[in-house]
């Protein structure tokens, strides 16, 4: 859970900056920030499950 927590904190902070720096209306910025946050979480979870099934040892 610690991994997920810190990764989520990272995703929130990064998404906020990306959203603020994006071009467009306030609503477009908000949607972009939410999209970035969702993408961070989705990619991390997908990669996590892929790596879980790969036998490294």
């Amino acid at each position, binding site marked *: 859970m610690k991994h997920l927590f*810190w990764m989520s*904190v*990272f995703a929130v902070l*990064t998404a*906020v*900056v990306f959203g*603020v*720096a994006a071009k467009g209306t306030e609503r477009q910025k908000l949607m972009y920030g939410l999209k970035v946050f969702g993408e961070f979480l989705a990619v991390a979870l997908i990669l996590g499950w892929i790596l879980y099934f790969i036998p490294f040892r």
Partner: protein
Amino acid sequence: MVANRIVKEKHEPVETPRVAWLMGLAAWAVPGAGHLLQRRWLRAALAGGSVWVMFLLGLWLGGHLYALTGNEQGFGVLLQLLPMIANVGSGLLYVVCWVANIGFAEQAQISTYEYGNTFLLVAGLLNYLVALDAFDIAAGRKK
């Protein structure tokens, strides 16, 4: 004729106001300051605040800042230089830590050490983005 004029206008060099460079510099030096000086309160709080929080969390998690020590050999210097460039993006936060020798010791025994490193690196990189945003606003390229 009209088309020629439009093309000509598009290629005319646009002079960047000096204040834009100052805003960019201020934004780099103190995260959020570039937007604060331009009275963009919400942007300053969100973007600058995120960089501050990320940097302080990085230190708290046990991450370490990179610096050139002079002992690097050959291409080994790149392994220090590239992350150092990212860290320097945090502006005076990095300078203060460097002067006070805070965060430069490796603490790999701490379980959150890698998270801390990542937070510190990305805080600097995000601040470059925030500084560019402040520069663009001051130059009139962005609202």
